């Protein structure tokens, strides 16, 4: 199963409020170190949305975005951790956009 999502970075407003809402505790720690927090947040948002799409359920399905954790592997490549299980994700940024693809 595949899921994809794209986010316009400039749409991310009130970043710190949004961050608290959609990021898990581990992600928040990474967010605080991010050089470009807005871009970081847009990428995470896209990854979480893409995950929901791959699962074939929408944002109203009851799965909270902060339960879908987008963490780093040792290589620095992202990985989605949901309920202890790992899923493949790829995130990219360019100019105004962040995009993510998830495969289940």
């Amino acid at each position, binding site marked *: 199963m595949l899921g994809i999502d794209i986010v316009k970075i400039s749409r991310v407003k009130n970043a710190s409020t949004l961050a608290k809402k959609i990021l898990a505790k581990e992600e928040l720690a*990474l967010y605080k*170190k991010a050089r470009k927090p807005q871009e970081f947040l847009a990428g995470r948002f896209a990854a979480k949305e893409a995950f929901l799409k791959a699962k074939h359920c929408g944002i109203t399905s009851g799965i909270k975005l902060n339960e879908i954790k987008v963490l780093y592997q*040792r*290589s*620095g*490549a992202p990985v989605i951790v949901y309920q202890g299980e790992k899923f493949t994700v790829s995130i990219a940024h360019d100019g105004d956009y962040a995009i993510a693809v998830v495969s289940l």
Partner: protein
Amino acid sequence: MNPIVTAELTNFDNIRVTITNPHKNANYVFILVTDINHRHRIDPTSIDKKETVHVYEFKLNYELELGFEYHIAVTNIGTCVLNVNPLALLPDFDTRFYYNGDDLGVTYSHRSCKFALWAPLASSVILALDEKDYYPLKRDKHGVYRLTLNKNLKGHTYVYYVTNSGVTTKTIDPYAKASTINSGASVILDLNAYERNMNDKKLTKMNSYLDAIIYEGSVRDLTVDPSTNIKNKGKFLGLAEEKRVNKDGLPVGLDYIASLGITHLQLLPIYDFATTDEAHPQETYNWGYDPIQYFVPEGSYASKPNDPASRIEDLLTLISKVHNRGIRVVMDVVFNHVYEHLYSPFEAVVPNYYFRRLKDGNFFNASGCGNDLATERLMVRKMIIDACKWWASYYHIDGCRFDLMGLIDAETINKLREELKRINPNIILYGEGWNMISGDNLTLANSDNYLKMPNIAFFNDWYRDTVIGNLHNKEVGFGLDNVVYRQGFKEVGTGSTFNLLGHGSRFNSVDRTVNYVECHDNNTLFDKIQILRPNDTPADKLQRVSFVNSLVLFSFGIPFFHAGQEIGLSKGGDGNSYRSGDKVNMFNYALLKERMSLLETFKRDVMIRKNLQIYHSNNNKAINNNVSIYDVDNGGILLTAKTYFYRERDYHLAKIFINPSLLRLEYKENNKITIVPPMSILVEKGNKV
């Protein structure tokens, strides 16, 4: 079958007698014979009788004193020696016999010679001078056997005959400072006679480990290439020779090393190791991770292996010459195992003491060599510290690289550091801090325990795996153009201290990480690229080598290179060349000319690194505040740093463009375009900030 009796002292006041194939319905009487005139009947306090074996335990109401040979006589069977060697396994053996003096080995003067050997289990120690005059030594309360001979014994050889539990073994002195060829006998020399100006004043002060750029090589590999005019090939003196060139007239050996701009030359083992035949060194090859004498230099590197002074004088000459070029010398020390432990001088002098044992009596073998040295035992720790102190004070060694440091206990490393800093405040100490299991409940000197060991640095395998790829699989790292590892590189490239990936930071300051991608072990960088990027053109493979080397130089931490890495030398895919011979291992100086551009880039980036103050800062806050990292095209990175450039008083912005890809990188900022060629790093000096 006849009965067989054995007896051992299992504690200072407990004897165990074992009788195999006992007589039927036997009722034995036991006599402890302390000497021919003193016999004591002893009665068992417990008996375990099985059909084929009886075990009798005797709890004495006194302790047996060591330093004597005891026998047990059993009626109807005979006598046997009481084996006292098990006592060395007891924890309190250390506290009872610990000896703190600094006179183990030989104390020489023109008028007298003092011998001292720690052998607490022994009943007798005989000195054999030149294998023709024999002198018994006298025991003191620490189990140190001593003898003073009031003669000038310069040049004489000696060995000891040590008797432990009835077994007499001939052995060299584990504290010997000089030796005949192939570790045959220890030698008495007037060591003061060889001392010379070691040129310590030519060395600039080190503010921290971050001033070091370490270059690892072997005496033999660096000098043995037949195409150079080095006279003493494969020898200490060969590496000390100056004005030596290859066929193209380019400098080789010491001149070459000095031209690189590196600050520390780390030599593969130079202590006396076993597996190279010192009489015919060209016929055997070995790196030397098989120590036999910890206080003596290796004989195959001596210009005259038959002259015991030669290896000492030659090594002093080498270190003095290296110092003269402003370069410090680090020695590779192997205190995790020895060559053939069962026949080592340690086992001969104090059986059961020097090696770690499992509860079932087996040897620990985390080193993979059959024995792990019991570094935590007080006299082993003392030996390690004494040996390093000897190298630092007599040979003016400037650092130690600990092989499998993770098998040495942290307390030994800490005590060692304190002692060595007293001799040389600029000493650098680092090692392989792999997390391995050895010993019971020991705090070992692995990198996970770094907080317990101030001022010790560690080879960083995370760095290696992130930059070129995992050692054990075909994963490609950031430095070989894999953007997946870009985020990982941001972490290891800034000193493995900032926890950018959320896995916890490896270290708390950047002076703890030795950043490396190639060392004597495993594939060379070039060979790794052959495996991971087989479809590259030969020129691109070399360009990748050059790029990765620059990447190591522009990473935060202590940069480390293996000889030949700077020009992409290959070992033909041999990933474990410890005895693969000169052809595989030697520094091929004939390639210098065609690899000139790699060499020039390397030297240039060494200079730039030295000149950027930020790379010498050990202040995490300063690094965090002054360094920024941005993703750029081609999977690249722009690292900016507010830093002093050498001797300037204003901060400028250093822009370091890192382009790992096969394509050139164009970076636009304020109408200015910066072009970074493929697989290269470009450093720009920006505005005052």
